[in-house]
């Protein structure tokens, strides 16, 4: 006993025939699509473009990514600050270093 393709197609179509949009729903759908199309055609803001790019390449939420980047920048900045000194402090440190070396008799 094999499936009769033609009869199966007919039966399936008659069974599913009642599943459809009403005319009202179709008009609503068309209006929603036209509104969506207009929205899509509006000039995009930078944030929107950034968001689109970000979510096209990664699954990490943009806000979380931005916070992570901020924390990273702050961390790096604090680390680098240790090595950043003004010219007066540099001169003082240099002078002290030279004096220590002279007193020690190494030079």
């Amino acid at each position, binding site marked *: 006993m094999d499936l009769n393709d033609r009869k199966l197609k007919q039966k399936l179509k008659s069974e599913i025939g009642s*599943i459809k949009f009403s005319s009202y729903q179709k008009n609503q759908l068309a209006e929603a699509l036209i509104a969506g199309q207009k929205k899509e055609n509006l000039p995009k803001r930078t944030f929107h473009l950034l968001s689109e790019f970000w979510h096209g390449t990664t699954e990490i939420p943009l806000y979380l990514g931005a916070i992570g980047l901020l924390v990273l920048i702050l961390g790096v900045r604090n680390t680098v600050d240790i090595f950043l000194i003004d010219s007066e402090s540099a001169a003082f440190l240099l002078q002290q270093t030279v004096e220590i070396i002279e007193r020690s008799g190494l030079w």
Partner: protein
Amino acid sequence: MSLTAGGSISNLHLDSQAKLIEGLKNGDENAVKQLVFLYSDRLLQVATLILKDQYLAEDVVQESLLVAINKIHQLRGDDLSPWLYRILVNRCRKEQRKKPWSVVEYLPKNELELVPATGVDVERDVLEKDTDREVMYAIAQLPARYREVVTLYYLEEFSLETIAKVTQEPLGTIKSRLHRARKRLQKILIEGGFFDGFE
């Protein structure tokens, strides 16, 4: 281009299709309405069979049409139909990934009335009207990938080559899936006592 009362198309010639695509590319509102009246019912039926949920299918059709309208410039050539179905199938797959636990277990016909109705979906509708919708019920028992192929083959009457394009699968895979799906369908229909109607 002529539309029937139900919104289906009686005869869409290639030049009409080309005009429709041109209208969509130009942002013509009438073209959007034509697209909705031509394709929305067919897309809804396909999505309903694949997703087994009419309300979810309605959302997916709306999303798919919006994607199609906004990406119409990416369409190469004048073959709108397979391209639309490709978008729809991809959206359906995305929805299915969200709820992978949704699996329908096959029940013999005499046990169908004992199944409690939960939620509003086609599965329930099918279970309640088992004698009216036996093919739909049988298709609902198939795995998702089989449902796609069976729906496009039996409902849309696409060729295997077109189904391969729509589903983005190799032709051999489609042939094999259809063959296995038919076997399973036959088994379900026979075991459910539905098969008599096809002889």
